[in-house]
């Protein structure tokens, strides 16, 4: 097996914020060389706080002022020896700085050019200013989670959804395009819409609406078709337990754990009677769980074959022996740095017999200027110094 299957693929990465960086981090974990084009005058790049450090691993950082003709010429030169371009500029910036697909394909006809934008690069709303948080509303998901409230709490706005989802779509498109290129030698243009990326994952709502029906139960708060099912308050501070009963066996398991508190009605073994009584069953379960210890009840339910989980937080997940055994989080330079790829492959040649991606620390801004401008573009130290003096390399 060659896990670094993208070795030899060079990606010019103009992206910022979240979706693009998550995409190129993933490509880097599979062996692609990511050249991240940054600018020390943009706070996003120069401050590097918050999530920046956990979504920008595996990249080589260079700083370039793309508003200057020299900077644009250097980009074109870089594209000549690259395979993929990833960007999320506005349409105006792309055209203004000569970075559009039509311009870059003249330099490299087989380039794979991937553009991610809020609405896509065509259509009447293509130039609208959009942010991921607003797209989560426009896509309809905000109306399907929680209750509307002015403080925007528990409404599906945080944590970001549209951005990580866009990254997964973007990575899918790029991997397919790279396979196409390897097989046919042909490049491609991908025009990805973040709105569409979010809407495509809401089939239940769309299909019910198309048939003129309402979705009967919101999956954000319950398992549709299961009864009882929900997230219930337990004893202790902010302790919650999610639980779903889908089958007669799970129902019997729940009854065993509840003991004397279990509903005695034998008719409830069937799915239909339980669904008809869902509200009542959820109420009885809520009353029973309110004074129960969440962890002990969870263990008892698992032993009885009932799907259940405490509502866990990230600190607990990072410490979870199961996550650790699966190398979900990887140490770089002696500290837990980031989540690895969301899959695990058997690899007898790797430590622990499993492979979850190769990761390097997030680079300092401009850390690879000499590599990119010297080694890749062949500019002499004197020329690089001139360009830095002129503000082109910055």
């Amino acid at each position, binding site marked *: 097996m060659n896990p670094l299957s*993208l070795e030899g693929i060079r990606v010019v990465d103009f992206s910022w914020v979240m979706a693009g960086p998550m995409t190129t981090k993933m490509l880097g974990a599979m062996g692609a060389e990511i050249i991240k084009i940054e600018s020390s005058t943009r706070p996003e790049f120069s401050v590097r706080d918050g999530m920046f450090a956990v979504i920008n691993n595996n990249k080589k950082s260079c700083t370039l002022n793309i508003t200057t003709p020299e900077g644009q010429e250097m980009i074109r030169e870089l594209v000549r020896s690259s395979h993929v371009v990833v960007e999320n500029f506005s349409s105006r910036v792309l055209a203004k700085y000569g970075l559009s697909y039509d311009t870059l394909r003249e330099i490299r006809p087989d380039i794979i050019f991937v553009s991610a934008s809020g609405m896509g690069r065509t259509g009447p709303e293509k130039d609208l200013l*959009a942010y991921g948080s607003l797209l989560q509303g426009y896509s309809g998901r905000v109306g399907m989670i929680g209750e509307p409230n002015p403080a925007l709490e528990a409404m599906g706005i945080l944590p970001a959804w549209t951005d990580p989802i866009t990254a997964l779509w973007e990575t899918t498109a790029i991997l397919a395009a790279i396979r196409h290129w390897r097989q046919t030698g042909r490049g491609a243009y991908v025009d990805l819409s973040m709105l569409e990326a979010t809407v495509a994952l809401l089939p239940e709502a769309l299909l019910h609406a198309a048939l003129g029906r309402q979705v009967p139960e919101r999956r954000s708060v319950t398992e549709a078709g299961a009864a009882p099912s929900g997230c219930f308050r337990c004893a202790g501070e902010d302790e919650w337990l999610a639980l779903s009963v889908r089958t007669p066996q799970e129902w019997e398991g729940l009854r065993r754990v509840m003991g004397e508190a279990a509903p005695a009605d034998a008719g409830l073994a069937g799915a239909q009677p339980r669904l008809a009584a869902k509200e009542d069953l959820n109420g009885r379960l809520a009353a029973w769980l309110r004074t129960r210890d969440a962890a002990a009840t969870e263990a008892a339910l698992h032993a009885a074959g009932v799907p259940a989980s405490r509502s866990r937080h990230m600190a607990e997940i990072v410490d979870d022996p199961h996550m650790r055994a699966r190398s979900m989080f990887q140490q770089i330079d002696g500290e837990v740095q980031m989540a690895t790829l969301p899959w695990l492959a*058997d690899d007898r040649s790797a430590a622990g017999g499993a492979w979850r991606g190769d990761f390097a620390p997030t680079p300092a801004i401009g850390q690879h200027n000499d590599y990119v401008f010297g080694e890749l573009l062949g500019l002499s130290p004197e020329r690089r110094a001139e360009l830095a003096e002129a503000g082109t390399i910055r």
Partner: protein
Amino acid sequence: MNRFTPHPFRGPLAGLKVLELGSDISVAFGARLLADLGAEVIKVEPPEGDPLRREAPLTPAGESALFAYLNRGKALISLDGSIEEGWRLLDDLAGRSDLVIATAEAVRGAEPDWAQRPATLVISPHGLSGPSTERPSSSFVLQHASGFAFHQASPVTEPEATAPVGCADWEGDMAGGLVVAIAALWALEAGEGRRPGPLVDVSHEDLLVYMLVEPFADWQAGLDVTNRRRDPEKGLTIAGGLVWYLPCADGAVMVSPREDHQWARWCEVMGHPDWTRDESLCGDRIVRTANAARLQALMAQWSVTQANRDVVEAAKAARVACFPVSTPHDLIENVQLRARRFFDEVRFADGTVLPMPSLPFRFIDQGGEELARGGEALAPARAEDGADLFEALLATRGGPARHRAAGGL
């Protein structure tokens, strides 16, 4: 088609052969994405059909629209993998494929390993290895096990009264489909065609954890990620800038006038240009963040008298980021989605035609050929309609005796 007619562009994955086993939304959706991109996907169902064929909503003739969304564009065959001969036929089909995508349940008992199997993905709730793989689980419960529900209800003013809340619709499972597609394309290249190919373990729990970028970054930065209570000192900064939710006479909008110049234009839209002169109310972004709740109340007094479409149009004209909170019906009618031919029209045997999302990107080959979007497509056939295809697949193998022995056909 004669030799002077170019073949239509079938997609970047043309020629790839994929075998899909088991009943799972992520497995089905991931394999469908590969089919959309040009792969030939054979989905194997048990004799009684995939249980997802009964999942709502159903067309008037009782066909599952969700099943159609997950499986259009695939070849469907019915085979009983629980008996020995059926299992041997699956082995045979796997040997002819470039990729196998399966649920853990569908390949349980697959020991000894199929010698000729290609790169193989196995999808399960908690993975194939680790001390807690056997936890009983479900799509809803996984939202809580993975932390997504907890962090989607954080921060909140009253944690004790606000339950953790999961993703909308089938989002978690559909995101799993994306990871399946990505892992499949990686495994295909990483395996370099060797048999048996790499075995890839995809856990629903892992992939939901992977999506939690901000909570992980907060944990990494040493912040307390265990406490959901909102710090009232921190204002209401959402995802990098101020976002307001404003109820309207008929629905709601979300608006984000972040910069001072955007805020000034937004005040004009609301008919309150005078507000911009009140430094203590909304002087700059920091002041607006501190006063977010008070400003929301003031803006809502205006917005509840307005139709959400009017608010959005006025904001658009003023170049302020503002969108309605769409209903599913709004999305089906949405002008932008329609203009980009985002919805395919999928026709069922009973004549029902439903709009279904296509891939959320236009994919254009360097020669200018574009992967089709927005066309008509047929809903998947019933599993038993795959008999002819199965005959063809087995023509080189064993003939009718084996066919009958396969049961379930």
